[in-house]
């Protein structure tokens, strides 16, 4: 009986340990990744970066290269014409 009690206790502790260091560990890693990548702070910092880039763009004389400007223009025209066709 006594040995059974101790063995049961040991198995229970090993089970807890195994659970913690496998399942719990994996869950924590996922949580950490989520916490690091989509935290409020991260979103705020991306917003701040975008705002800074926009400010830089406003201050530049030519923000978009002429080639890119032509390309974007053509692309927008294409979208516009496609949308008009649908109507």
């Amino acid at each position, binding site marked *: 009986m006594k*040995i059974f009690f101790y063995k049961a206790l040991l198995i229970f502790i090993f089970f*807890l340990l195994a659970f913690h260091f496998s399942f719990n560990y994996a869950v924590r890693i996922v949580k*950490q990744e989520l916490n690091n990548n989509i935290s409020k702070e991260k979103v705020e910092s991306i917003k701040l970066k975008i705002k800074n880039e926009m400010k830089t763009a406003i201050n530049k004389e030519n923000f978009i290269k002429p080639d890119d400007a032509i390309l974007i223009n053509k692309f927008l025209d294409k979208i516009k014409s496609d949308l008009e066709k649908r109507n």
Partner: protein
Amino acid sequence: MKLNYNKHKNSIFLIFFYFLVFFITFLNINDYGIHIEEKFHRLNGLFWVNYIFDLLGLNNLAEISQTKIDQIYDYTLNRPSYYNKYGVVLDLPVAFLEIFLSIDDVNKIYTLKHLLSFLIFLISSIFFYKLLLSRYNFFLSFVGVAIFIFSPRIFGDSFLYKDVLFLSFVTITIYYFNKSINIFNYRNIILLSLFSSLSVNLRFFAIIIPFLFIFTSFIKKDNLNNITDFCKKISFYILFFIFFLIIFWPYLWSDPLNNFLNLFKNLSRDLVDVKILYNNEFISNRLLPNTYILNWIAITTPVLQFISFFLGFIFCFLRLIKRFINIKEKSIYNDFWRGKNEETDFIIFIIFISFYFLFIFFEAPLYNGWRLVYFFNIFITYFVIYFISIIFGKVKNIFTKRTLIFFSLIIVMININAVIKFHPFQSIYFNKFLSEKTVNGYEGDYYGMASKHFFKKILSKNDSDKIYVAVASHTPLQRGIEGLPAKDRKKFIIVGQEYQMADYIFKNNISEVNSRLNKKYEIPENFSKVYTFKVNKIIVYEIFKKELTR
């Protein structure tokens, strides 16, 4: 009557040692700053004093305490009625003293608290010494108690009546735990119930001590042979434990059961949820790595001490496994130990491992280093001595024995040296083998102990009547002003993160947000660094000054 020197030389030596430690500390106690939670604890004490006076109908005294509460309260603090679960072991007696002795100078109140906290720590170390002496010889017990007292971070925090106060009460609890298991009588059980309830009062997680006591006394052979007596004594222990818990915790008086259960209910609200600087990264304190505690202990404990602790723990663990494998259904010995010495080792081991895994399993949201588990110092020191005693037992050669004595004294000397070198900032100690980058990649002065130093520095640089100070860290600097003489306090106006209003900015590496992403603690461009306060390689704080005149 003639004193037999030879018979009492150990006691005389110990009395001299304690006198020296106390005397030197007493002379230097004013060097320590004000920590950021002093105000809260004063408020906590006065809040419960006020509650007791109200209860007893002592209206005049209740009025005095209420006036004091209103004077102390500031915007950086929650009302104590909101956060009323904190223990009152030291806060309440000091609040009584403050009122009955009419102490109004806040610095005197804090100094008194620092002194009492240190005294309790010293008294607890005597219990630790007695615990060691019941197991080892005088020399090893003395080395143990010296390591216990002079572990740099523990020594530094021993004045701050928070985590080391808990360490002190847990030490006394463990002493009576061991004594009760050894001699299972009513006197020891009452004392154990008293100190275990005081420990629970200070830190709720100490609630596992009663369970461990019941478990350990249950597996002891002598008790199993007389199960009626065992049940009687355990019931006695539980009753007294509950009795003392209620008596010493005014929070429980109005509705003991429900208020006690509320401790669990409000746990998620009361637990801190912040980002902490750990290994040069900001991580959430709710998602700490399993190695968090061990890593902190490793980097903030002198290397030799840590290695000895680690090896001592491994040796003890291996012996326990050996005992476990050899358990037989019928045996004249106890299952996990042979004799009194091994019994003490088992008790220390089981308490340590239970607490350690409790924190890991429940993913305890620790912060500010390992301060919440400073009571591990008991186990760290115990296993250091255990390791040294094992090596002592194995060597026969007199030269090797002397080398071992030298080794033990070296561990103590390293600690004393660190205590002197870091004075009065021992609580931010890191071991000297770490690089500057590493030590500054962990939380530094989380208690804001350096705020007094900061204000004095500013006063030496600026003699204006009004000095505006902003804070670029998660340190309520406002509270540190109390460390200054009254006339100087008025000169400072703390403007939080309103940097453009400030003449100076205080910065340390404590932040509740990821300050690399969140810019709330970013120093504006029109400020430049004028001073860096370093203790060894650790940057304690920096001062930035506005380049343009106001």
